[in-house]
């Protein structure tokens, strides 16, 4: 009960944040999973971590509703007719957003906003007003920058208006991804880059690569997670490769025994979460989203997360010089790759009958870390402060991207002078995608909105929080923790 009282008395939380935290505390007082003592021990040792997902899941973690269908049909449950103009379209979406469950209680996916709104753009000036209000409304009510909208790959009037509005608003919510491929016109891509250099979004997604993994009906949700539209992910559980490596007697033991066992234990927790959610919670039997065909159970999968590859490799190899460390030394990079190949193989061995959309397997996700991770790098990233030159950095890290359909990325910080030569960044993105890099987020050193690890936060809001004031967006809390513990604002500037 101490926990409950401390939430109630926490001056840094707004009313809504308190309600959410109290609900989480209630859920966490239960224990419904049937897992082994060994798995429990890994959870306690923070080798396995479910990122506060809750101990009795009653909603899928990442939900990507089929907003196209919603626009076409309206909703019986919400008593909404299909929209006829830009005002109704944006209003309908805002209503639905408030009914899409998630861990943060805010939707992690807001749809392909450009194609959703394009049919309603007749008078551009009026559409711009509607879009700007729509985005402002999202920022002030959805309060979580894990909420993610998509654009592209084609250029649209709506897409350009959204970019323009974002340049003016400079809000942290929603995150935006531009699905990019060789059909995206250069001038649209440059428009997007100019926007990102002002407000750290959109990020660029390698559309061809995602289509190869999911087909055309995929969305980017939350930080950078590729998932099925009309489905999503039941759960995300992550494996701390650094802590796991500390349980091994060396490289061979790690690869042959410890890592496979870690995968088994992580998978068993995921199995239990999915079993409870699907079979007991009633989520898929009662949600109007299912009833109206906006999501269906068989388009969901489970995300197997990992992080701390850099520290894992450095722990196993004990490099003597900076040149031998992960991200620099050939041996270290090779071992990193070998570990991820092995991880993929082991995860591929595990079958879960509710993940039929991904062949009965969980899919890999390079997790970005949380505010309390100190000294452990996100996913497969090279530690901040050790980044090699940009070209080496991209070539080295792109190697890992094909293993992670449900998301992986680095974050690149550019000096504000590149605003005079935005083709520079477009060239780099094209090159990176040629190397099979999956996702490319970036910002400029003088943005107020910055990308922390996967999500966006305003520097000005973090300063407010640091002075003990309550702030509107939940991510600010995480962001400030990450700035202090992971030095994310000290990224190498290009």
């Amino acid at each position, binding site marked *: 009960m101490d926990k409950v009282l401390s939430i109630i008395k926490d001056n840094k939380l707004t009313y809504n944040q308190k309600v959410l935290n109290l609900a989480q505390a209630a859920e966490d007082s239960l224990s419904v999973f049937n897992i082994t003592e060994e798995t429990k021990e890994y959870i306690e040792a923070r080798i396995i971590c479910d990122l506060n997902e809750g101990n009795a899941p009653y909603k899928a973690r990442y939900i990507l509703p089929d907003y196209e269908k919603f626009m076409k049909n309206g909703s019986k449950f919400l008593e909404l007719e299909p929209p006829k103009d830009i005002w109704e379209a944006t209003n309908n979406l805002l209503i639905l957003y408030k009914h899409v469950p998630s861990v943060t209680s805010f939707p992690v996916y807001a749809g392909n906003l450009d194609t959703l709104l394009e049919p309603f753009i007749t008078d551009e000036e009026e559409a711009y007003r509607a879009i700007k209000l729509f985005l402002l409304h999202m920022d002030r009510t959805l309060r979580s920058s894990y909420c993610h909208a998509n654009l592209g790959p084609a250029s649209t009037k709506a897409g350009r208006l959204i970019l323009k509005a974002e340049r003016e608003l400079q809000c942290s919510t929603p995150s935006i991804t531009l699905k990019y491929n060789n059909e995206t016109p250069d001038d649209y891509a440059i428009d997007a880059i100019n926007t990102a250099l002002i407000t750290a979004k959109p990020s660029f997604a390698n559309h061809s690569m995602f289509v190869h993994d999911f087909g055309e009906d995929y969305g980017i949700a939350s930080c950078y997670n590729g998932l099925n539209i009309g489905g999503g992910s039941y759960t995300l559980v992550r494996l701390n490769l650094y802590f796991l490596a500390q349980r091994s007697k060396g490289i061979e033991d790690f690869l042959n025994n410890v890592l496979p066992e870690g995968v088994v234990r992580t998978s068993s927790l995921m199995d239990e979460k999915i079993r409870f959610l699907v079979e007991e919670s009633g989520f898929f039997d009662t949600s109007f989203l299912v009833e109206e065909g906006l999501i269906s159970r068989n388009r969901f999968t489970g995300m197997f997360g990992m992080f701390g590859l850099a520290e894992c490799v450095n722990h196993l190899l004990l490099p003597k010089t900076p040149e031998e460390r992960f991200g620099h030394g050939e041996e270290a990079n090779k071992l990193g790759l070998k570990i991820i190949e092995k991880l993929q193989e082991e995860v591929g061995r595990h079958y879960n009958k509710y993940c039929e959309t991904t062949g009965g397997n969980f899919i890999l996700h390079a997790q970005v870390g949380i505010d309390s991770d100190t000294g452990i790098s996100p996913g497969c990233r090279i530690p901040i402060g050790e980044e090699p*030159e*940009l*070209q080496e950095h*991209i*070539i080295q890290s792109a190697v890992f991207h094909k293993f992670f359909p449900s998301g992986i990325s680095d974050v690149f910080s550019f000096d504000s*002078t*590149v605003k*005079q*030569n935005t*083709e*520079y*960044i*477009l*060239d*780099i993105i*094209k*090159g*990176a995608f*040629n*190397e099979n890099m999956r996702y490319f987020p970036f910002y400029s050193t003088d943005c107020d909105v910055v990308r922390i690890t996967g999500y966006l936060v305003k520097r000005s809001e973090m300063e407010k929080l640091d002075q003990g004031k309550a702030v509107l967006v939940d991510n600010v809390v995480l962001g400030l923790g990450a700035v202090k513990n992971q030095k994310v604002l000290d990224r190498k500037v*290009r």
Partner: protein
Amino acid sequence: MAKGLVNRIIPFSSVDGPGNRAAIFLQGCNFNCLYCHNPETINLCRNCFICVKECPYGALSVEEGIVLWNNNLCKKCDICLKCCPYHSSPKVVAMETEEVVTIVKRISGFISGVTVSGGECMLQSEFLISLFEKMKDMNLTTFIDTNGSIPFQDNQKLISVMDMAMIDVKSFDSEEHKKLTGMDHSIVLKNVEFLGNIGKLYEIRTVIVPDILDNYSNVDSISRLIAKINPSIRYKLIKYRPLGVRKELMESCIPSDAMMNELAGLSKANGCNNVVIT
């Protein structure tokens, strides 16, 4: 195959022409500008071996009377550059065209093209031609960054493989130009007209140096010249920055934003429609 004396290669550069470019700096210059930021690119090494003794990391050695630099041992402390009495560098490498091509190939998917700079790269035009021919095979654009002192007009072969040039016009006054660089500016201006007229002039730059140069008059005349040739040629006004400059030759200060804006305004009023300050 030609060889080039390479001072260094920057694989990704955002400031050497349009898009992302590999910037290749060649050693040796026929000017000796008072404000040169990279004086170590001016002269060729005389193999006096003073730097060999000074290198704290054993990255320099002598082999057959020539100084040899070991990239793997080098910690980039630049002590060798500071102690060289001849404004040279022991880290210059004579590279075959093919060696440079190999480096560029690795990153060719990331760049729009290459820019060769210096020192004064036109002193090694044979190397430029052989390198640019290879770059064209890779569909990369080829830019030259030059002090303009060597005539382009006579070098048809180079012009046919070069996309664009960027020329420094450091002063419009012959005497001042001589005082600043050691040479007259008549060829520079001829090159500007010639390249401008055949549509191969990407940019003109002028470094603004308070108290030392007649900046106002220079910018006034140069911007008129640009406007006459083609108003959309980019005119870049560069703030003098003392970093790396030989202080014993010249003392100046960084020009104010107000001054830069005034000069940019003047250039625009004279008809230039692509003026940037950096």
